């Protein structure tokens, strides 16, 4: 109340002032658009062009929604392994999905053993959910991941504990997509940190090597990297040594992702104010201590949302392995259509695969927005 330097008399004089001003009579409070009519008027019919647009939208809805419901729900065939039933019906053939969903989800994995990829996937997704909650970001989470990776590997490959061995050429569907994406991220991440640090290094040779790698990979499409992995890797290796197709694709994806992640990490590094580097130097910390204890913990926090975004786009990009002949989710959805009696039901097949991709990506993009809000601690340099 009382400002410093004012005598009590002055304060009283100031507070008495408004008495001389005649206040306007109070107005009725503004009507808030709580009523449905007000809301409709404000949001749909506020002007002539707006009204026209609204009518156009209503017409579009009228043209698309009823036929869509007819197709997807009313006229649809839900079960029964007979494609003829579907061909006679007007609507969607969800029977195709009931018939083929095991193949689309798990690919060529032996039918009787498919509880194994199912369990592995449940473990995997469960751990992903657990690790999406920031307070759980503790050392035990790393151990949990090691355990989950090991048990997923045992489940998928088999060969121990009385599980029938399954060669990784028979892996497919959602587990393969998840493996390619998550292993890609986990392996690319350390590499990307090294690349980002190298790009900001004072040593010209190291900087040039890192910039060259990052810009080369970012300048070419993923397909060309995958082609390189599939046709050139066998040439690179000494005679007699072969590596399987899955590993080659995985290496290609790791190298590709590392270049993009490196840019996300570099963004984080650049957001650290200079003073942090100088303070660490003044403390006499060595380069690696400075980087590991001071810079990276702050930089990675800033870089997490872009890293999640990168993970989303990598998750979608794993679908490109269809071109080098791996059975990921998209390939199985496409291959399920090769069965002649079911060939006509491509919309159902692609829609099914698209919904799985969509659910994963939508969840992750919402998650990245949540993280961005949560990690925002006001240290951003503006």
């Amino acid at each position, binding site marked *: 109340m009382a400002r410093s330097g004012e005598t009590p008399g002055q304060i009283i004089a100031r507070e008495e002032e408004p008495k001389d001003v005649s206040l306007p009579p109070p107005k009725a409070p503004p009507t808030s658009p709580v009523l449905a009519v007000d809301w409709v008027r404000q*949001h*749909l019919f*506020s002007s002539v062009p*707006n009204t026209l*647009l*609204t009518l156009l*939208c*209503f017409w*579009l809805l009228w043209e698309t929604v009823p036929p869509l419901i007819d197709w997807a729900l009313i006229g649809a065939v839900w079960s029964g392994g007979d494609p003829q039933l579907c061909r006679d019906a007007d609507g969607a053939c969800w029977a195709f999905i009931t018939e083929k969903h095991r193949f689309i989800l798990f690919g060529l994995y032996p039918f009787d053993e498919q509880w194994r990829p199912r369990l592995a996937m449940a473990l995997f997704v469960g751990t992903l959910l657990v690790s999406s909650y920031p307070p759980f970001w503790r050392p035990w989470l790393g151990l949990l991941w090691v355990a989950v990776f090991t048990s997923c590997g045992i489940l998928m490959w088999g060969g121990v504990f009385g599980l029938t061995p399954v060669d990784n050429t028979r892996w497919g569907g959602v587990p393969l997509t998840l493996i390619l994406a998550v292993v890609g991220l986990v392996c690319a991440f350390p590499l990307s940190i090294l690349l980002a640090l190298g790009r900001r290094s*004072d*040593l*010209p*040779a*190291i900087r040039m*090597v890192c910039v060259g790698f990052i810009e*080369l990979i*970012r*300048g*070419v*499409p*993923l*397909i*060309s990297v995958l*082609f*390189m992995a599939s*046709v*050139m890797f*066998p*040439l*690179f*290796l*000494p*005679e007699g040594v072969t590596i399987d197709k899955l590993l080659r694709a995985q290496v290609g994806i790791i190298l590709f992702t590392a270049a993009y992640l490196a840019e996300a990490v570099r963004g984080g590094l650049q957001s650290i104010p200079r003073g942090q580097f100088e303070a660490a130097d003044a403390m006499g910390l060595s380069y690696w201590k400075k980087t590991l204890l001071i810079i990276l913990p702050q930089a990675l926090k800033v870089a997490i949302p872009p890293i999640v975004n990168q993970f*989303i786009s990598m998750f*979608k*990009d794993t*679908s*490109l392995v*269809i*071109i080098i002949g791996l059975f990921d989710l*998209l390939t199985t*959805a*496409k291959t399920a259509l090769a069965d002649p009696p079911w060939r*006509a039901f*491509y*919309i159902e097949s*692609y829609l099914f*695969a*698209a919904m799985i*991709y*969509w659910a994963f*990506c*939508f969840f992750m*993009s919402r998650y990245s927005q949540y993280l961005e809000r949560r990690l925002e601690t006001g240290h951003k340099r503006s």
Partner: protein
Amino acid sequence: MQQSLGQPAKRSAWWNDARVRGVLSQVFVLGGIGLLVWYLVSNTLANLETRSIATGFGFLEREAGFAVSESPIPYSAADTYYRVLVVGILNTLKVSIVGIALATLFGTLAGVARLSSNWLVAKFATIYVEGLRNIPILLQLFFWYTVITQTLPGPRQAFNPMPGVFLSNRGLQYAEPVWDPTYGLMAGALAVGIIGAWALGRWAHKRQERTGRLFPTFRVGAALILGLPVLAYVLGGAPTELDVPALKGFNFRGGGTVTPEFAALLVGLVLYTGTYIAEIVRGGILSVSHGQTEAGLALGLSRGLVMRLILLPQALRVIIPPLTSQYLNLTKNSSLAVAIGFPDLVSVANTSINQTGQAVEGIAIIMAVYLTVSLSISAFMNWYNRKIALQGVR
């Protein structure tokens, strides 16, 4: 390092000197990379020798021996690998350029629509953006390709929405004007019109700065750009001969064609990249504070002028850098053409690799071309970005 007064500093060991360490670590890294490269190259050479695969770019001179489904330049299976690769590059450029133009248009519309005060329009745009950007582009390409080839009727039952236009599962066939020198004249007139309008704009701007008088630049410029070609067309005798597609056997002959592969690729790329551009445009517009609009209106500017003179220049500064990377993404994603059989660079290079076995050279060509295209697009967009950036700040 502690150093007391009066005593000479104790020299630390040479391996603790930062400069020596820097040089040493660089030597180690370079040496390691050099060893790795040497190992890979020697392996590759040995492997190539045992498989008796030739090296070098000599294969470019040989006959390719495979046909491509569409080509902007005349090409036959008897032509060389060099020519088929050029065909691939041209096809890649064609779909990228058309795709970038359409995706910009479509994405801007969707981005503005998401900010619309009309609730329904905003929801439609949101469903489009959130729906399509979370589905892999390759899946969308397969979907569109299958829709086009399976739902459209065969050439004999083709839709014929207007004379000379046929829509079937062989693509869109349309009547094309037969070449006439008048069209060359029209192209020249168009160029003159564009240069004239540009010069007029500059002159009008200078005059406005000097005297304050406005000049109807837009109307006169549009009249120049549209009017001159029309004038040329009339002066050239108004040729009307058309090459109309006609059903011969199982397919159409004559006229121009949009193939199903090209259409599916274009639709997929435009819809997918459009979602990203929509978000960029929306972010750009939201980044300009509302006070700017109100200040513009308070100055008495019309809504159109506020948009053009106040909002757009500020929003563009935010929009251009991420837009550049979307253009690059679209260009790189056009390489997915190989999955639906559009003969782009990756597709023809892949066929060439399979035929000759010269994987190293083929992939080097693909990478070199994409790097060149990427660098050119970034160079152009960086130039544009500098042009619209705040002057004198930095």
